[in-house]
């Protein structure tokens, strides 16, 4: 009989684990997520960097130090296998004072310890040759070429699609509310959609990993949210070619200035600690954004006027007691594996975390994992009209005219792209139609106009493909419906 594995949480951690575990013949893998779609937790709003692995102190944070650089190396391979949007543009940690070089030397040394290749300190001339837009106060930098950026939600989506293609079962809008433990062994998870039997339960619940652990009687750690806010600018605002960090202080890694993978200048995040009960407080604040602006200006003085901002957003880092990732099989409850406290650099580390979990299953739970004869490592990205050369676009349009029709005018997303996205949503089990699900797969609504032209059209397409009324289509899951009924609903005295 197969060993049944329940993974709680379809963020970058859970999705990576699902993909890696889908390789094995003798596992039956269930991926359980309370949100309507995958990747909507911590993995949704972050800096999206594949870090270099130089700044986690191996003495203090051994897991982070080990898994970050490994994750970086694995991502170089995974982005190709899974066609995840990415760029390997390297990072500069910029010095503006002589003392900063001491700190950079420390990072360099730590990087060497952690096995980071190709790092070096560069002088002012080379620095300005690379980034002429930097503050004139810059005097040198640490250059880390292996740093890159990926689309974090597209990455989660790609991983889950690949996992599902390899036999993983998803359970979306399924919230784990209890964990059944008998005789010191896990038996399964209780959810709003019934009981799911499992021999192994993997807790990859992000901000809520402490609550899930407590359901299994494990309470030695707590997770508190630390908010980070961002500005995103229009795509014609000039940004740097590389990821720019200030020299870190003991308190913070500092505000990053970068051009994200879609070509928008992005600045952030700050760091603000919130009480544990505010795990859903994703509101941006005037103070936080002011801090981001001031911080970014120190590195990149030519910030455009505020009217060129196209979006602001916030994310919450799941900060664990102790500060290091908690990745282990818990001895008191056989079969319960924590993947908790996955704060930064969790996105980077995710592939390495997944292999670590496979290792734990073999080593600590003594389950011999048998590789499938046929396992498909590949996954194709959906069509993006804006990436097609005209002759390719034409071929596609001849086969399916929907590809010739532009829905999102800012980013040139076609109706064909959107219909493909909806098919992919259904493939991984998305039940509630949401504009955000389409947005993260196609980039529609993320341009200059932020969806004011195309959102109504996307709503129509979702309503049709899901067979619901257009006002029942949501922005981001139940409770965020686009409308309250048809236009006469209130006058008739009915409303949805």
């Amino acid at each position, binding site marked *: 009989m197969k060993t049944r594995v329940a993974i709680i949480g379809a963020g970058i951690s859970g999705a990576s684990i699902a993909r890696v575990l889908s390789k094995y013949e003798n596992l039956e893998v269930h991926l359980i997520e309370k949100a309507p779609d995958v990747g909507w937790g911590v993995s949704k709003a972050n800096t999206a960097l594949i870090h270099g692995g130089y700044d986690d102190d191996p003495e203090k944070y051994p897991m982070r130090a080990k898994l970050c650089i490994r994750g970086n190396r694995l991502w170089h391979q995974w982005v190709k296998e899974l066609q995840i949007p990415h760029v390997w543009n390297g990072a500069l940690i910029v010095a503006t004072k002589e003392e900063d070089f001491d700190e950079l030397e420390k990072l360099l040394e730590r990087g060497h310890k952690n096995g980071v290749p190709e790092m070096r300190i560069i002088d002012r001339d080379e620095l300005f040759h690379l980034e002429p837009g930097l503050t004139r106060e810059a005097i040198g930098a640490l250059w880390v070429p292996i740093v890159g950026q990926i689309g974090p939600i597209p990455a989660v989506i790609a991983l889950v699609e690949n996992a599902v293609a390899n036999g993983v079962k998803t359970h979306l809008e399924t919230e784990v509310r209890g964990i059944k433990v008998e005789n010191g062994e896990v038996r399964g998870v209780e959810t709003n959609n019934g009981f799911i039997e499992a021999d192994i339960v993997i807790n990859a619940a992000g901000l809520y990993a402490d609550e899930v652990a407590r359901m299994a009687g494990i309470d030695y750690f707590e997770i508190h949210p630390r908010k980070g806010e961002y500005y995103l600018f229009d795509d*014609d605002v000039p940004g740097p070619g590389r990821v720019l960090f200030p020299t870190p202080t003991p308190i913070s890694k500092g505000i990053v200035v970068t051009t994200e993978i879609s070509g928008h200048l992005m600045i952030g995040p700050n760091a603000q600690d919130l009480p544990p009960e505010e795990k*859903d407080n*994703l*509101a*941006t*604040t*005037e103070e936080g954004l002011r801090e981001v602006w001031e911080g970014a200006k120190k590195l990149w003085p030519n910030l455009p006027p*505020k*009217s060129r*901002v*196209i*979006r*602001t*957003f916030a994310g919450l880092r799941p900060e664990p007691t102790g500060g290091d990732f908690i990745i282990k099989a818990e001895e008191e409850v056989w079969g319960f594996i924590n993947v908790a406290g996955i704060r930064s650099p969790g996105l980077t580390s995710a592939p390495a975390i997944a292999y670590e979990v496979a290792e734990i299953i073999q080593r600590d739970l003594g389950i011999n994992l048998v590789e499938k004869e046929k396992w498909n490592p590949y996954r194709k990205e959906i069509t993006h*009209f804006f990436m097609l050369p*005209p*002759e390719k*676009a*034409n071929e596609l*349009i*001849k086969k399916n*005219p*929907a590809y*010739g*029709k*532009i829905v999102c*005018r800012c980013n*040139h997303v*076609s109706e064909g792209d959107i219909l493909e996205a909806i098919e992919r949503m259904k493939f991984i089990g998305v039940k509630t139609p949401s504009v955000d699900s389409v947005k993260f797969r196609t980039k529609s609504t993320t341009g*200059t*106009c*932020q*969806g*004011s*032209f195309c*959102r*109504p059209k996307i*709503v*129509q397409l979702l309503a049709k493909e899901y067979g619901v009324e*257009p*006002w029942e289509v*949501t*922005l*981001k*899951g*139940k*409770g*965020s*419906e*686009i*409308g*309250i*009924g*048809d*236009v*006469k*609903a*209130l*006058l008739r005295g009915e*409303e949805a």
Partner: protein
Amino acid sequence: MEPMPQISMLSYDVVVIGGGPAGMAAAVKAKELGLNVLLLDENDYLGGILPQCIHPGFGLHYFKEELTGPEFASRLAKRLVELGVEYRTAARVLEIKNYSDLEKVVIFTSPAGVYQVWTKAIIYAAGARERHAFEIGIVGDRVAGIYTAGEAQTLMDIYGILPGKEVVIVGSGDVGLIMARRFALEGAKVKAVIELMPYPGGLARNVMILRDFNIPLYLSHKVVEVRGRGRVQRVKVVRVDENLNETGEEFWIEADTLVISAGLIPSVKKLKKIGVEIDPATGGPVVNDRLETSVPGIFVAGNSLLINDLVDYVAEQGELAAESAKEFIEKGGIESRKWVKVRKGQNVRLIAPHYLSGDRDVYLYLRVARPMENVELRIPEIGKKLRLPVVKPAEMIRLKLRAEEIQKASEKLTVEVVRA
């Protein structure tokens, strides 16, 4: 010139980009003048934003009667069809290339394929886009229930969806006020219209809506924050001082819907890419009195030129652009012995066209920076004076200058609005 394999090629005298009132009027005129014209619009229907403007108030000048938006659009569309103007809907222009004065390429995509169109002249009439919540600095939760006015209007009057029932409107311009009425007419409660400036931003006839429907207007206030789970639950409003800085005075309004009507911005990114000079005041291109941009043979009309309040002027600009395209094609360029530069004087916030030849009569379109009563509009260089009882930023001033008047100026003329 790079050849593009396997892409269907078309060839026209003039391509009109955008099928709103500006583009339709331009295409009709171009056809009447005997030009071989192609009109392209990305939507499934012609009319631009007019089909969603179901209220009356359109066409008093152009058709000499009061029409609704859809009526105005269908009249123009009828003329277009009668004349046999070639047009394509669901056709989005992706790129414009300017090889030489009379050789330009427009690349568009449509359900029939990607096309490259060779053309001598281009009339750019792509309209405007709306400022959204992020651009005006609203912070808080990113939830459902926040719409631009145009999006709310599209949902209601193109797709028949009611966005919400308790509404706060940001901006007391025409669009905001019209949307306030639109929601009220469908039984929603419009809890407030919030206006940053110390005076309302709309035409007087639209400000009346507030009284008719008993809607509170907060002048010198702004919405700064939205909170809610899933959907908007409340919005935070603060009072601003004379310098528009936030005072400490603030309050919350419970609402499930926030409609942003904070102004329009000409959609000119595609023009910027090919080096067309933009006027930061209008947000549209710098043009001469033929509505020609800094790239010869590319003309602009309607809300892409500058934000208009009246569709009649939009159509008038479209016609002028078509006449100019004809002149451009026939003469191989728009020439003038001299160009008189139009300068903004006191209390003039924006003005177009920017350069006048003196070879023809022109309409100047301008807006003031501040409302004033009992003023004189003056152009000292040519001794022109015009008495106006009131001027408001909300109401565009259209001023006719005769060729002889313009000829009196040497290099520049300054338009100012001063106390009489």
